């Protein structure tokens, strides 16, 4: 009889299990997609500099030999404006940040950097957006953590916020730099 009672508990347990699973699912942000490129080498690319700006452009070789961040940005992207001061602060702290300027007219990009400051060690101009597609970018801004072997270790979608830096990016950089 006791065993039979326990049998009736099975549906309850299944229900609780499914409920917990769905509740956890609700806490996830569906607009944030996992990157298919985690732990893979950065894609082969070579981008020219932003026209009218001094600098060498950006290519795959630049991302090897040193831990760095790659930030995809555009002057027309409002959230980029939000995260920009954080990038500036990171650069001041000695973090190497490379920029991919996404689908941006050269004069607009140059003006934006003049106004907001330029935290990027090197910037590649991706006028067609093709290189960004090779990186699996689907929204701007996106930020990638690259290890010293030139592999993508982490991707952040959307504007970086202080809690993303403290909770994820900075510890990761510290670990990769060890």
């Amino acid at each position: 009889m006791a065993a039979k009672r326990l049998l009736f508990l099975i549906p309850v347990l299944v229900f609780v299990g499914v409920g917990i699973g769905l509740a956890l699912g609700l806490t996830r942000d569906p607009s944030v997609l996992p990157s298919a490129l985690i732990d893979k080498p950065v894609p082969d690319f070579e981008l020219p500099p932003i026209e009218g700006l001094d600098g060498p452009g950006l290519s795959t070789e630049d991302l090897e030999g040193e831990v760095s961040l790659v930030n995809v940005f555009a002057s027309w992207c409002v959230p980029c404006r939000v995260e920009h001061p954080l990038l500036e602060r990171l650069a001041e702290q000695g973090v190497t940040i490379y920029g991919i300027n996404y689908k941006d007219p050269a004069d607009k990009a140059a003006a934006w950097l003049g106004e907001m400051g330029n935290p990027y060690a090197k910037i590649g101009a991706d006028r067609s957006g093709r290189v960004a597609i090779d990186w699996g970018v689907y929204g701007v801004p996106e930020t990638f953590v690259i290890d010293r072997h030139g592999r993508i270790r982490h991707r952040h979608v959307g504007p970086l916020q202080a809690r993303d830096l403290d909770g994820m990016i900075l510890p990761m950089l510290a670990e990769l730099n060890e």
Partner: protein
Amino acid sequence: MRRRLAILALAFALSAPGALAATNPDEILADPVLEQRARDLGKELRCLVCQNQSIDDSDADLARDLRRIVRERLLAGDSDAEIREFLTARYGEFVLLKPPVEPATFGLWFGPFLVLVVAGLGALVYLRRNRPAAPIAVPLSADERARLQALLEEEAKPSH
């Protein structure tokens, strides 16, 4: 007249799905066979910005870029599978609106059938167990038989 209007309306209705696709005229390939393949591929590839639309339906910038890439690769002679691979290498399997059947997605594909089978077996066991016992045929007693006989005879009498 009415019939003609009806035919016209039907023609419009049938042409609507094609017209609704987001593909711009300047994207369309000259080769209708390749264009059809591009459309079919576009319908099964997810626009990552709008997520529940295919790149064939979406007007997002990224969707347009992806449609262009699909067409470029078709022109370069890639197979449909190669194009799907090109995109999953960049965006993961999420880019496929129809997930592939593989160990990680077995739950997704076969889970519902498993639930159906388990529930069906459960229902079967339950119904078997609770089937009402077959009525036991007890012969009528002598009294009952006499009463039944009396009632039947009464019934048989012609009514006044």
